[in-house]
């Protein structure tokens, strides 16, 4: 994915060539749909949200000031949209207390891979049940390959705030899922 391709397509689209926007859609559809999916965990809704994000990007192309790369602007726009969409119609979530956790991860009958899979799914469900400000910070941080700067830009927050929210979010997870995340410590003991 090249920034110059994005810039060229934006300039053509702004000059009236609507089909140039297709290049942008093709390049960024997978990341935008995946980001939406991480917010709502609903495949159909994630495509609707991503489509709306592309439409808003098209309407606001002239507002991209080129002081940041196009993708940063696009992700910030999409993140804002997804957050407000989720505030408008919240996704179906469980409370942290309702997240199922095996009584002892070591005692499970399944094989190691199955147990790892179950544990991963439980932790992801728990992220989804976190309060919005921690959940959003975690979603953006892991979506952007653990890049705090990019996550902060997408959220429109200072890096320090995002770091604090990440820490607090992980701490809540740690305390709500002690059994799942405690196994290595028990082994060490």
């Amino acid at each position: 994915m090249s920034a110059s391709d994005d810039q060229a397509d934006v300039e053509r689209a702004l000059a009236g060539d609507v089909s140039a926007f297709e290049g942008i859609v093709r390049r960024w559809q997978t990341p935008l749909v995946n980001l939406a999916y991480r917010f709502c965990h609903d495949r159909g809704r994630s495509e609707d949200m991503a489509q709306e994000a592309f439409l808003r990007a098209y309407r606001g192309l002239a507002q991209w000031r080129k002081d940041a790369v196009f993708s940063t602007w696009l992700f910030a726009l999409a993140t804002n949209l997804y957050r407000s969409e989720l505030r408008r119609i919240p996704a179906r979530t469980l409370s942290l207390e309702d997240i199922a956790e095996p009584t002892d991860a070591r005692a499970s009958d399944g094989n190691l891979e199955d147990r790892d899979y179950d544990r991963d799914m439980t932790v992801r469900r728990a992220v989804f049940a976190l309060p919005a400000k921690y959940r959003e910070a975690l979603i953006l941080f892991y979506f952007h390959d653990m890049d705090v700067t990019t996550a902060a830009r997408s959220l429109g927050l200072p890096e320090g705030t995002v770091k604090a929210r990440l820490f607090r979010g992980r701490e809540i997870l740690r305390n709500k899922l002690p059994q799942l995340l405690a196994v290595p410590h028990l082994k060490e003991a």
Partner: protein
Amino acid sequence: MRRLTEHDEAEINSILSREDEILPSSGFTVSVMDAVRREATAPSPIPFPWKRALPGLVVAGLALVLILISIIAAIAQLGKATTPQLSMSVPSAMPPIFSGGIKSAAIWTMLALLMTFVSVKLSMRLASGRV
């Protein structure tokens, strides 16, 4: 509450950074581009008719200024009135509506109704584009 250790953080990082990727459905690009083309060909929103609304706005602004001036004048007259015989001086300082009796009140009411009628008619003409 247990504090988060580096090991905990690494473990959570390892779990959450492995999230599966989904692929958009095959018709997604087409669907987005259809919506974009509809957006591009849609007529631009109708701008507010400033030219038509300007006379009404000017009249409304002037009326507001006149009302403010009369209120300020009334307040200034009240301030000038001496306090010892307040009950006697107040009626003379008030606008005519308070001192002219029923006839004056009827005139003011008629004026208000007329203004309302004119503004309703004007806004209806503006809305229907016949100005």
